[in-house]
């Protein structure tokens, strides 16, 4: 093996410097900000952990955290199940290009435009989707007044928006499952479910875990769907963490508490993702 010396370190230095400048320094600055009381027109003053304690005492923070955890788990797992189902189904079809293109379409639409269109479609009074649904006997959709319905719509829209991401990763993994393995399983008498359970799923599991980790980190930042559909209302009941952060930092100009919220989000998402990363390491990168 070649020796890793000063020359190699120097060659890697620009990349490290870029990472430091683009990621580490801003993150450290936000950490420092979270330990200060800071607003427009006044000098920052060090307050220790006061901003974190203020979060601890704020019931809206806990509500936002609770909403975030419930909604993102629903979004991530529903999205993964759908992505696996579609990937496996489409992989077995002959003319699948059109279907794959249709699945990818939400990614081609601007997020804001897509959410606003969903909002129009689901308007209980005039929505082109809501009214037929109600005519079919589906209970009245009170997503603007009922927090559970509001967050359910947020989850549906978010799954619709981000399904292409999980689908693409998993679809590629399903296509990469060796045909011989499936054939051998079929010869041994395995049915469709057994082939999926014992051949396809173990093979694609590392990719599923990668998708899961990415989606955890991305979903924790859930903002646009809530902001544009419910605005966090009624009465702040559908607020999520990113919205809480936005209010603290940009509406109340309370930069310290906003920064503290940001760090709590980072730590929480990393904690949740850590379990899956460990599993991923064991499954994919373990030394034989």
């Amino acid at each position, binding site marked *: 093996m070649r020796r890793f010396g000063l020359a190699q370190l120097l060659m890697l230095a620009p990349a490290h410097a870029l990472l430091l400048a683009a990621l580490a320094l801003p993150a450290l600055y936000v950490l420092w900000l979270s330990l200060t009381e800071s*607003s*427009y*027109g*006044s000098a920052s003053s060090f307050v220790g952990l006061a901003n974190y304690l203020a979060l601890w005492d704020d019931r809206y923070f806990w509500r936002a955290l609770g909403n975030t955890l419930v909604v993102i788990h629903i979004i991530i797992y529903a999205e993964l199940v759908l992505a696996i189902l579609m990937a496996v189904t489409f992989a077995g079809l002959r003319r699948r290009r059109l279907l794959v293109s249709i699945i990818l379409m939400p990614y081609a639409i601007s997020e804001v435009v897509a959410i606003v269109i969903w*909002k129009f479609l689901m*308007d*209980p*009074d*005039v929505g082109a989707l809501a*009214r037929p649904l109600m005519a079919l006997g589906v209970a009245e959709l*009170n*997503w*603007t*007044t009922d927090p559970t319905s*509001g967050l359910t719509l947020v989850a549906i829209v978010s799954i619709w928006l981000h399904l292409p991401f999980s689908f693409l990763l998993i679809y590629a993994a399903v296509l990469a499952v060796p045909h011989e393995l499936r054939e051998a399983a079929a010869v041994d008498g395995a049915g469709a479910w057994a082939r999926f359970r014992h051949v396809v799923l173990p093979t694609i599991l590392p990719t599923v875990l990668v998708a899961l980790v990415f989606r955890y980190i991305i979903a924790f930042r859930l903002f646009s769907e809530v902001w544009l*559909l*419910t*605005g966090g*209302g*009624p*009465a*702040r009941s559908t607020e999520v963490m990113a919205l809480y952060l936005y*209010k603290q930092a*940009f*509406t*109340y*100009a309370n930069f310290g508490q906003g920064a503290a919220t940001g760090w709590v989000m980072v730590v929480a998402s990393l904690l949740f993702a850590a379990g899956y990363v460990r599993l991923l390491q064991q499954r994919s990168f373990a030394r034989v």
Partner: protein
Amino acid sequence: MTQITRRRVLAGTTAAALLAPRTGRAETKPAKLTIIAHRVHQLTATEGPAGDVTASWRARTGVALEWVTLDLNAIHDRLFREASLSRSQVDLGFMLNTRAVPEVMRLFEPLDPLMARAPIEDFADLQQRFVDTFRDGTAHVGIPYRHAVNALHYNEVILQERGLAAPPALIEDLLEAARRISHTRSDGTRVAAFAFEADNYPTLVMMARAFGGDFITEDYKILADQPPMVKALSLLRDLYAEGHLPKTIMAMSQNDLIGAMQAGQVAMTTFPFGRTVLFNDPKVSKYPGRFKTAFLFSNKELQARGALISTAEFWSMVIPRNAQRKELAWDLVRELSMRASTIAEAINGNGPVRASAYDDPRLKERVSYADQEAAALKWSRVPMPAFAKSAQAKDIAVEEMQAAMLGMQKPEQAARNMARRIKPLLPA
């Protein structure tokens, strides 16, 4: 043929780099002046029936204007952030009255020395209560540009169809009128009698004032737990529970509300007078020319003495302390504040901040609601005085109002909560 060699490229680049700063220093005037504003400020200053008010200034100075238009929160965030830097490229900004608190005003240039050198035309003609709001101690830091006085806008076709010649003038009559107006059309479309921005608080404050109370007084006394506010919350709850407000009102943006009015899904709403142009726009409205304006709901006692309920907010122009071209920015402020400019901007849809503008025959001829707006302006008050934590107070008011409207808590409890939670946020 001349060959491009590495040496020539290097020499050329070095020469260009050495010459560039000299060229920059040779420029005596900046190419542009950067302004942070709302889109409505840009539109009223540069577009409309009266034309571009800034055209002659740009021609005279040779300076272009770069308008950076943002949403309400984003304007202030960007402006205050820029003003907090050691040096800013932003030359002029527009600030809402509720943001004019001492901590923030310190970030902006005191205008008195500039005013002494180059005064604003007929300064006393500007609404002095608007001018006074933007004082940091004795120093002026803002010059008013626009007011937004609220009116009751109504669709006269819908009202006539439901047997009403005019909207209710008294707050006590609103619920009864709403019961007559709300209905479902033959095509299944629901028409709601009334709507307002339920993610904001001015309509709630207007109703509390119409019942004889208030929200927060000018001297920072909280009156939110008094009976008039309870009555206002109860009225909103009843209007919602009986279906006289749109079902989606909690999630309706300003654009959604304007669209619903234009489509005839809502019969009455509260908005600044100038919005009538949008409601009546033949390109997008189903009822062009049939939207009228009226004064906000009042009460018998006020009506008897000829007083009005009127809420207004206003915008002022401010120059960041760290701006690089303060004299030029001030020159533009003077231009936009001239009497002729104020009238032209008003014809373009702006709320004129000069009392005399409403006497101008051109304005009377072109702006149908000019007399009404002038009367409302005379009685107008801001929904809430400025203080550092006003954004939190607004959110608390909205939250408690929504909770009361949806029956999540009783109006009495919501009013008590509002007062208890806002009181610690007020200046001592």
